[in-house]
């Protein structure tokens, strides 16, 4: 498909969905119980004309980060054994997308190494917990031990034939003269290379015997698993597994209790490491290289401080359970002396970051943080295109495709030519215009910030030229005005909802789900709603609670 076609199609799908669903969403006060989305109606989802169904995720292998957290939480193994695995590639902006999580030959070999390491460390760390019936060392005890282990490692009870398989290994160790404990260790290593561990939820029953297209609620263990990898980026703990074992999670009040408990748990920090960092593309800051003669204060410490500011902003937002609109409009953040210098704030000293209030005429939440502005800059000057692309991708979910084959890069500036004029020359080429007509006017609004994020009123003796335009044609001057405008439209609420759902489900959100996404966003990304409102609405969505059977 041609890239221009893909872009047009994406916009079309989004706007078509808005036409169908936004008026319904506006009138939905969340009190109706029969809104047609099959979930009891408390997530604010209005009836959308075409029910897209919950979609199918497919077997979802643990990412490197999820693997590390999982063995940490299971066995206290903190050596991050998955760090040597090949990097997980991303789909739709997130590395936990099932579509890209396959097993390659190199990964298979490394998985075996890691499994042996983890099994040995686990036996050293927590053998007292693992060897539940010690000192008995008979076959019955071995089976009990493996059953208890498998429940935690497979995130569901093991079936008898699965235990039989593991018992063969245990017997192998006895035959070799390696002993009872070694037999448990070998079996544990086998569990850790098994699909039941490496993929989030390998079904215990025969999926293909059900009718294709049939929708069924996730079983409690699969739901517990999806919930814990969403909120913790890690495996369910014993308490959650116990709830699943008692078939309690179908009860919304029990699910809510667990949801609240898990959000309050420190493991929910993974929402930042797993979700926010990828959503905002913060990995790009690692490659930023501001010119040392122009920006002598920039070094790796300042780079880390910039990231720390973003992290502390989000920690604070979650701790207060604030509104997600603060990402656009917040003026309260964290800075140390060097970051305060960029923000133009006096009186902040030292290396530690502390709360500061920013000038609301100059700053707009995350959009104007030094981390975002620096990572989307050239070494010496702001990069208008990159800033525009970032805003389009992360905040508006307008995904400009990469430049197509055979299209030359933007021309070098002519002598004395402004950046705006140079890009106008670029857009004069029709093949460039269709994307850059969207991107460039977004990027222009950032003209008040130099390559490190310092505020400026002039560029080379000329007043800044920060006039830009939103995709809907609204003209805005500067990022503050742009953010205020965005806070009043549906596009940002839809976009942040789409990002959260993409991460939570581990799959790309389909075009026919835009209506549902938009409705959840409109109801839960407002001045009066909170971070946890949105997370809960996602958990309560049909897409999260159920799955679609795919036939043969």
């Amino acid at each position, binding site marked *: 498909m041609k890239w221009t076609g893909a872009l047009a199609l994406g916009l079309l799908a989004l706007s078509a969905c808005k036409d169908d669903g936004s008026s319904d969403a506006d009138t939905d006060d969340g009190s109706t119980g029969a809104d047609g989305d099959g979930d009891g109606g408390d997530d604010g989802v209005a009836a959308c004309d075409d029910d897209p169904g919950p979609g199918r995720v497919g077997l979802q292998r643990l990412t490197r980060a999820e693997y590390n957290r999982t063995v940490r939480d299971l066995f206290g193994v903190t050596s991050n054994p998955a760090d040597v695995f090949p990097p997980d590639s991303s789909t739709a902006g997130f590395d936990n997308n099932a579509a890209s999580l396959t097993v390659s030959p*190199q990964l298979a070999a490394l998985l075996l190494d890691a499994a042996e390491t983890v099994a040995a460390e686990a036996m050293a760390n927590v053998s007292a917990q693992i060897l539940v019936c010690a000192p008995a060392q008979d076959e019955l005890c071995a089976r009990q031990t493996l059953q208890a282990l498998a429940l935690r490692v497979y995130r569901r009870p093991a079936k008898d034939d699965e235990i039989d398989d593991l018992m063969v290994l245990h017997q192998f160790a006895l035959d070799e003269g390696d002993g009872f404990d070694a037999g448990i260790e070998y079996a544990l290593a086998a569990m850790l290379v098994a699909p039941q561990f490496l993929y989030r939820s390998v079904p215990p029953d025969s999926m293909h015997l059900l009718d294709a297209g049939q929708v069924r609620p996730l079983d409690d263990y699969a739901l517990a698993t999806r919930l814990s990898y969403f909120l913790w980026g890690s495996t369910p703990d014993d308490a959650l597994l116990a709830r699943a074992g008692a078939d309690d999670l179908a009860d919304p009040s029990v699910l809510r209790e667990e949801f609240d408990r898990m959000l309050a748990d420190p493991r929910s920090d993974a929402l930042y490491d797993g979700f926010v960092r990828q959503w905002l593309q913060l990995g790009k800051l690692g490659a930023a290289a501001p010119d040392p003669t122009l920006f002598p204060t920039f070094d790796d410490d300042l780079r880390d401080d910039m990231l720390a500011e973003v992290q502390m902003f989000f920690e604070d937002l979650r701790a207060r359970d604030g509104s997600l609109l603060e990402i656009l409009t917040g003026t309260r953040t964290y800075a140390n002396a060097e970051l305060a210098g960029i923000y133009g704030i006096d009186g902040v000293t030292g290396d530690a970051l502390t709360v500061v209030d920013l000038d609301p005429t100059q700053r707009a939440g995350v959009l104007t943080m030094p981390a975002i502005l620096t990572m989307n800059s050239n070494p010496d000057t702001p990069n208008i295109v990159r800033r525009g692309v970032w805003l389009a991708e992360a905040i508006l979910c307008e995904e400009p495709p990469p430049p197509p084959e*055979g299209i030359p890069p933007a021309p070098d500036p002519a002598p004395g030519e402004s950046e705006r004029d140079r890009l106008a020359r670029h857009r004069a080429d029709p093949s460039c215009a269709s994307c850059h007509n969207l991107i460039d006017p977004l990027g222009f609004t950032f003209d008040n910030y130099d390559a490190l994020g310092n505020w400026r009123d002039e560029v080379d003796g000329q007043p800044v030229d920060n006039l830009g335009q939103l995709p809907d044609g609204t003209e805005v001057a500067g990022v503050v005005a742009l953010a205020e405008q965005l806070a009043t439209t549906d596009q940002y609420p839809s976009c942040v909802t789409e990002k959260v759902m993409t991460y939570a489900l581990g799959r790309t959100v389909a075009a026919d789900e835009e209506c549902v996404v938009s409705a959840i966003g409109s109801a839960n990304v407002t001045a009066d709603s909170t971070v946890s409102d949105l997370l809960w609405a996602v958990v309560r969505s049909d897409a999260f609670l159920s799955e679609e059977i795919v036939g043969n």
Partner: protein
Amino acid sequence: MARSLNRRTFLRGLGGVAVALPALEIMLDAHGEALAGGGPLPGRFMMSFDGGALGADGDPVVNLYAPDTVGPNYDLKTAIMPLGDYGGIQSEVSVISGLLLPYGTNPIPPGGWASEFHIQALGPLISGMRNSSTDDNGVNGPTADQIVADAIGQDTTFRSLAYQVQASWYLTQSAPYGRDVISYRQEGGSLQANPGQVSPRAAYQALFTGFIPPDPADAGAVMDELAKRRSVLDRVGTSIETLMPQLGLADRQRMELHFNEIRELELRLAAVPPTGGAGCSMFPDPGPDPAVGGNNSSNGGSGFDTNAGWSDETTRARVFADLIHMAFTCDLTRSVAWLMTMAQSHMSIHPLTGIPYDQHELGHGGGTTQDMSEIRAWHIDHFAYLCARLRDTPEGAGSVLDNCALVHFNEAGHGYDPGSGNENSTHSTENMCMLLAGRAGGLQAGQHVVTNNAHPGQVFNTAMRALGVNQELGEVTGIIEGLL
């Protein structure tokens, strides 16, 4: 510690049952020129790929690759300067110039491409099969390494190996249209892409699994470990077989992939390499892989981030060269596809020559044919290093290189681009050059042969013929005259 191969050994099977492997020891005949059983010494094939062109856009200097003189002792221009190093490795390496990968839309010529260079030319180059239509971007036949592997790779531990030096596409998303794959295998009715191993560390571990230390006590411990690992994998494989029928189609395909990897790993753990010459030994672990660099911020020029687009490919290439050397010396495989840089490579060349561009954009306004040739030389230096190591490793009456046919080739030449209509374009398959090293089957080494627009596939055909593989690459017939 160097471990040499145990020439005949046992592996214990599951449950402690001793299983004697068939004796596979290879004995040379009295002259050291063939096996005692009468067969010839094994031949080896390798193809290495450089995803760059020989000249720069608009530069009238066609290339600095083809020598001025024909025959032996040819002169060395910038691109092939490394052949003057390594103790005169030039005498083992032939240069074939004047090659043309044909193009045209009405009709598309045999073994040729239509008009979209980066998208359409790679398939015909590696498969010898033309684009099936002006809209076809695919690869339409098996590549030489896989044809060779089917013919002579059945009895080695690895049927073939594929390695990849450039660690990332270095732009957002991943390499489109298979620009990162040069090896395709015909399996049953379908053509399977065979992407290269990117991690030198993982390649190292995979290659040397199964090496048994000479000390009996060490050997026993290694054997125990192997037996344990195999039994673990055996259980996992059994478990997957049980699960498989429970899954829907898409999941089952994914699980089959997983299952195949587990089973292959298990087989490799069981297989002790059959033999090796005196030079066969395990070299020290190369350590963790160099970090994978970030994506390029721009294609080149003032906004180019000189810290991105680079994952220490020089070190990565060196480890892979050492692995190929040992894989051949130990006869662990007889066919290798070695992708150095991807087609339309966006690897930064700043670490190599200090010019702030990526490899592809260097040709589109960032540099001259001279600048481009220095990047070709970086690739050819790795090729020359490998040739020299194989030359310096004795086998039979000669060296391992004497039993090799090694091909080095580029994505592009330099000349007319039918897509844009430009002359002196990087998007051109005119004026291509290739290298062919080794003396397998009586190959004439160290020559410069000028062809009159021969198809690059004829160089592959020459290498295959030297190895006794009497098959043509796709639609390309015949070999390069004067080399065999």
